[in-house]
């Protein structure tokens, strides 16, 4: 079988991460689409990929389109690739709005085009193992979940799309969505979301931090925390699932196996984060899985409907932050 020709759109931080992961998974990127004057040339040359600025030429040369672009253009670009019959990989979140995400999911279903969403948290080994342990019944029925993702604000240029809520969706759609997806994976569809954020309640403060309480259709409740308010060099994740037969916890403060601590960090240096290196990175595991799905050897771990449900829950959290009221989510839409 001829290897899949994988094209990346978007050559920022996540484009680079995905390209490395495709290579590690044994299917290097063959094409990079860049804006005129964009930064794709460096990525293309690093991976020996063809560089183009033309969408049609790009689509002609690829089987799979991997979108690592800013969130607000995901839907439009994914529709373009899907209508050209290309399999679509989208970095999370699936789209900037639930309406866009729903349109995209329905279009890809109608066209019969694979739509694969990069909720890479499901491939982080502690999160994947926790899901296995729960599914095996080791801790019984999940009842109360706690999922936290606390870090410093990613270093970005002031004019970056990432810092513009209209484009990125902000803290909830960019960061909390990891755990919104994970919570629904473990405890089932969410039926109500109540959330608060510093940006929403204390607009004069220049940090953001959000908390959300979820109710799941099967009765479980979840506490979510996402933060960009921590000092540099903090990236702490915490996972707790209390079940009828046991309690499961995973705390990155305890599992980080490599902990650099500079005696005299230069202000110009990026502050190193603690890490837990794996022989196979979560991104590589994700890409290996996507290759299996595209070869017809596996069902996707993240279905398009689940990725849509994550965007819906995130949008509900944003609405709750705005209104101060819990937002109810109709079950049939999330669970269909």
């Amino acid at each position: 079988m001829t290897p899949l020709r994988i094209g990346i759109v978007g050559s920022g931080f996540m484009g680079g991460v995905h390209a490395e992961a495709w290579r590690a998974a044994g299917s290097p990127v063959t094409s990079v689409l860049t804006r005129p004057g964009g930064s794709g040339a460096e990525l293309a040359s690093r991976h020996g990929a063809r560089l183009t600025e033309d969408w049609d030429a790009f689509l002609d040369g690829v089987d799979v389109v991997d979108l690592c672009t800013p969130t607000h253009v995901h839907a439009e670009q994914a529709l373009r690739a899907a209508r050209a019959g290309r399999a679509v990989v989208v970095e999370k979140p699936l789209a900037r709005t639930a309406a866009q995400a729903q349109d995209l999911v329905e279009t890809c279903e109608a066209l019969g085009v694979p739509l694969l969403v990069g909720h890479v948290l499901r491939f982080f080994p502690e999160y994947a193992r926790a899901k296995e342990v729960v599914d095996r019944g080791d801790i019984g029925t999940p009842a109360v979940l706690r999922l936290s993702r606390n870090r410093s604000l990613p270093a970005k240029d002031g004019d970056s799309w990432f810092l513009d809520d209209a484009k990125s969706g902000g803290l909830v759609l960019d960061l909390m969505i990891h755990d919104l997806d994970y919570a629904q994976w473990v405890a089932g569809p969410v039926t109500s979301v109540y959330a608060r954020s510093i940006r929403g309640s204390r607009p004069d403060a220049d940090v953001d931090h959000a908390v959300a309480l979820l109710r799941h259709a099967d009765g479980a409740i979840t506490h979510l925390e996402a933060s960009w308010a921590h000092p540099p060099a903090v990236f702490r994740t915490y996972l707790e699932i209390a079940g009828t037969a046991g309690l499961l916890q995973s705390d990155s403060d305890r599992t980080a196996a490599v902990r650099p601590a500079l005696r005299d960090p230069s202000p110009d240096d990026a502050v190193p984060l603690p890490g837990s290196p794996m022989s196979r990175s979560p991104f590589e595991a994700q890409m290996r899985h996507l290759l299996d799905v595209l070869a017809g050897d596996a069902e996707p771990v993240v279905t398009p409907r689940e990725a849509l449900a994550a965007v819906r829950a995130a949008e509900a959290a944003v609405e709750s932050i705005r209104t101060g009221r819990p937002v109810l989510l109709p079950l049939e839409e999330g669970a269909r």
Partner: protein
Amino acid sequence: MTRIGLLGVAHLHVDAYIANLRAAGADVVGVTDADPVRGRQWAARYGVSWFDDPDALLAAGVDGVVVCSETSRHRPLVEAAARSGVAVLCEKPLATTAEDSAAVVEACRTAGVPLMTAFPMRFSPVMRDGVAEARSGRLGRVLSAVGVNQGQLPMAERSWFVDPTLSGGGALIDHVVHLTDILRWLLGADPVEVYAVANRILHGQVVGVETGGLVVLTFADGTFASIDSSWSRPERYPTWGGMALELVCERGVLSLDAFSQFLTVYGGREGDLAWPAWGSDPNQGLVDEFLAVCSRGIDPSVDGEDGHVATLVALAALESARTGRPVPLDAARSTQTR
């Protein structure tokens, strides 16, 4: 010697208070309880004189009473103590209804007797240092807080905790008050709104009250704080539970863990894994201050009003979990007149 009477042995904290009272040199005059079988057993076990009813114990002459009955029975006991003109230390929450809670505070105010609410975490050196740090201004304003105060199902000790007519509810009524009080102390403000979700999946076959509970409190300036009061620590967890609070502030983050001061012991006599604590006992500070309230007439640092507001918050959490809507807390619901 300060003379103390114990009104009720339902609350498991009385097992600790008796040791704290004796360590502080108090004279424990006697004990009474609504259940004479349980009460006499407790009196014999701890070597305390048994009295058939509260009035007899009060008539024996006490400077103060510690009310550790079932929550629903606090009110008549506090009212009797107030009529006798003695100081009261009352377990939390003050009552199972807002009306009874207000009546508890009012009875002591009218009688002019001091009422102290049993919030031992005010006397935790960890919490005291943490609150001092937060209030020092070094971290800037507190913007948000995430608190946890989970525990084991308390039924193993005392079954009434899971009887809603006696306790008022389950996990929400049992533990929400503690961090609510810490947050009020730390922020110097009362919450204005409460939202909560709850469920009964853990131990759902055994008890009829909520065992999972998550709460968000909102304050007037926009500060918000979450509290996890779930009975989510399994029976074989190395300790009863814990309390921790992480504050997101303008200039950084402050993490407090009131029960992190323990050793880890593997394969010892206490089991495969044990956490013997070496932290200070907050109950001792609580009891020491109450004795000073009784003997020297000082004002308690955590009073009936503090207990009342925390009780209202816990009751609002129950209401919110039931209705699915945020519950506003207005000042009119408070008994505050100062």
